[in-house]
């Protein structure tokens, strides 16, 4: 009879039982980086487009910029003068058709004489006008 001694693990006297602390979940900063990146990209593209807008000179053709907006009277006047007529590009060519064409074209061309001041009058930049 062999007493098989059941080997019992040796108990270490009075040793504290080591238990590992649960791992804290790692903070995910991806969303923050995405927000910062999107903001930076928006600023960059806005800056580039404004620079192109300014450098190309299109800003000078734009009357919707601050300080250059048309006045109320100007808008009302242009609405009154505006004609929706457009000569049709199809159809026959007869003297009556040309009469209609000329009547409307002349009305448009006559507006060239209606502007209240002389266009790009050189005197506007003269020494006297500027005051020296």
């Amino acid at each position: 009879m062999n007493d098989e001694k059941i080997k019992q693990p040796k108990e270490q006297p009075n040793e504290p039982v080591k238990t590992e602390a649960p791992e804290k979940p790692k903070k995910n900063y991806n969303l923050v980086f995405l927000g910062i990146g999107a903001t930076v990209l928006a600023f960059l593209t806005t800056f580039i487009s404004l620079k192109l807008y300014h450098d190309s000179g299109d800003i000078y053709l734009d009357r919707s910029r601050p300080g250059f907006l048309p006045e109320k009277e100007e808008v009302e006047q242009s609405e009154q003068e505006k004609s929706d007529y457009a000569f049709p590009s199809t159809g026959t060519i007869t003297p009556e058709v040309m009469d209609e064409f000329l009547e409307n074209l002349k009305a448009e061309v006559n507006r060239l004489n209606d502007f209240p001041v002389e266009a790009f009058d050189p005197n506007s930049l003269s020494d006297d006008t500027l005051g020296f």
Partner: protein
Amino acid sequence: MENRIISLATIVLLAVALVASPVFAAAPKLSETQKAGITTNCGAIRQKLENLQRMDSKTYSYYQAIYETAATRYIKPLNLRLVDNNKSNQKLLDLQTGIATSEKNFSDDFIAYNKLLDSLKKIDCKVEPETFYEKLIEVRVSRAILKKDIEKLNELVVSAVKSAETLKGSLK
């Protein structure tokens, strides 16, 4: 002998360079009265330039709209209709091209003029009246070009009317 040829060639080249070089007209000298006037009225001058720029923008929009309407709503469709009817008119076709080219030149010249005007406004006329005056002369030249552009476009549009009248006469 060779040295003589080289020195003669050098002299000839120098002479050609001097004769061929462009003569730059010196900017008109600013009198003391003008200088004093610019420095004293700098603020008022700036304000006048601002007002002028606004007025010019209005002028440009007004005229450009008329030329654009004449070209796109009248002359171009008339030419298309004439071609459809086998009655194409070379004069009207040339005028259509001419107006398009002149409109582009007008826009480009207006942009150039405004850029010069902006750079003029940036100069501190109290501190640099001479620089201000030199730039003012450039702006005047640029403005004169705009006036010529408008005169040319007016001529083209009036020519288009006359050509249309001639065409009408030929249909009777």
